[in-house]
């Protein structure tokens, strides 16, 4: 079976005035159907750059990056991206409903469009806020709007760039569980970037650790924790704690 993503020996460097800046080197991994792959690494390890390559927003400077067997040469049809900075990712002058419609209003019209928007908003529990403006909502709700906009595309892959990093701990925990629920309902593949080790383990079927400058995949961990995951009991499992410890060491953190 053709993997969803297949990256081989990918590298990325920028030409700057003071010489080249190398961000990524020898990155190789695959994303197979049905899994949540989380990337974890300290800040400055090129996590966002890697996601941008997968999203078709940045072109790698070396190696090959394939999506469903074909080289990535731009944003793909059924790949949706959720960015960390929700306030700039949402169009603040459009209502919640019209933000969610942004990616699909070209192809869908009338009740079909309205139904798809409402379905997406129901998945994130915001169906009552369809006529609000994003700036009237809390940060967690705005991030839900962005997730709904991605889901409205009915994507086969969700690429998420530290989507919960700017949210408080309680909102973060409830959105993590919502995300796992959404994955079960929609079957979307998820590539999730975070600098939060516990989040990476909690959400992931596999965790890839990025390390170094330029960075590369230091280690891949299989997360064989029982499902459905639970914010309290999962996080208390000895396996969870052991993985947390190993990933912490792989990232190169000091405690």
């Amino acid at each position, binding site marked *: 079976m053709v993997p969803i993503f297949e990256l081989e020996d990918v590298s990325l460097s920028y030409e700057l005035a003071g010489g080249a800046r190398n961000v990524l080197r020898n990155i190789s991994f695959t994303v197979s159907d049905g899994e949540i792959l989380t990337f974890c690494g300290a800040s400055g390890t090129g996590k966002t750059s890697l996601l941008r390559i997968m999203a078709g927003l940045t072109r790698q400077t070396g190696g090959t990056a394939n999506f469903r067997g074909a080289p990535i040469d731009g944003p793909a049809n059924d790949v*949706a991206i959720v960015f960390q*900075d929700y306030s700039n990712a949402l169009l603040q002058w459009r209502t919640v409903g019209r933000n969610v419609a942004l990616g699909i209003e070209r192809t869908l019209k009338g009740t079909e469009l309205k139904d798809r928007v409402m379905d997406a908003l129901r998945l994130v529990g915001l169906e009552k806020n369809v006529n609000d403006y994003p700036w009237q909502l809390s940060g967690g709700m705005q991030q839900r709007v962005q997730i709904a906009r991605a889901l409205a595309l009915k994507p086969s892959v969700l690429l998420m760039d530290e989507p919960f990093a700017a949210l408080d701990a309680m909102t973060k925990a409830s959105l993590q569980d919502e995300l796992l629920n959404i994955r079960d309902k929609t079957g979307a593949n998820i590539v999730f970037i975070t600098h939060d080790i516990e989040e990476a383990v909690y959400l992931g079927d596999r965790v890839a650790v990025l390390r170094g400058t330029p960075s590369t995949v230091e280690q891949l961990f299989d997360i064989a924790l029982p499902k459905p995951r639970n914010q309290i009991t999962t996080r208390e499992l000895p396996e969870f704690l052991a993985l947390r410890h190993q990933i912490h060491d792989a990232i190169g953190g000091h405690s």
Partner: protein
Amino acid sequence: MLALANAAKGFLPLVIAIGVWQYAGDKESALFPPPATWWPAIADLIAADTFFPALNATLSLIGLSLAAASLVGFVLGLVIGTLPGFRHWTSLVLEYLRALPPPVIIPLAVLLLGYTMTMKVSVIAFAAFWPVMLNTIAGVSQIHNLTFDVARSLRMTWFETLSKVVLPATIPSLLLGIRIALPQSVVVTLVVEMFTGESGIGSLMIAAQRNFNAAEVFGLLAVMGLFGYGLTAAFSGLERAILRRWPLSASAS
């Protein structure tokens, strides 16, 4: 209602000053005629059928020029704002042209275009389009790169990105620019009318001054003051109504 009461409070000093002038001033003064004589002077102009055509001419000229300035300023602002190279090699020329006081181009405009409507609109629009254009450029440059990434990831075309992202994102800046341009176009309209002496409140003012009709000059001044204030207040109201959809920070003045 409260806003109206506050506005009325703001007018109080002016009302008191005019009252003092009326009751304490020299009733026979040729240069400072008491305010009660202003209205009869205007009434004479109305009776002679010259006031309303002149007011109409002035307001139409302001409206037409402001519309032209807004359109040209917005389109140029979008072009210069979205093409960084363009901005780079136009900036010096723009700084130079902007430093010209608008009335000094009247002789050149008359030379090239004659005493025509085109000449008047060109001169006034030249004065008024700067704030519109510069605010639009600033508005475009304030759009976050991430917002363009969103447009790209949703596979929007160039035209969709322009119409769904760039245009609406710059509307608050456009409105701010027009609000600044409005009083400037009132000023330059009156200067142009005084210079050409053909039509409008400005030409009536010059005529009254040449006839030493001080009451009429003051009366016309009061009328233009009222209209200048009214236009700005009306535009601010329109701006607030439009910006209800935008976050509060977008309408900061």
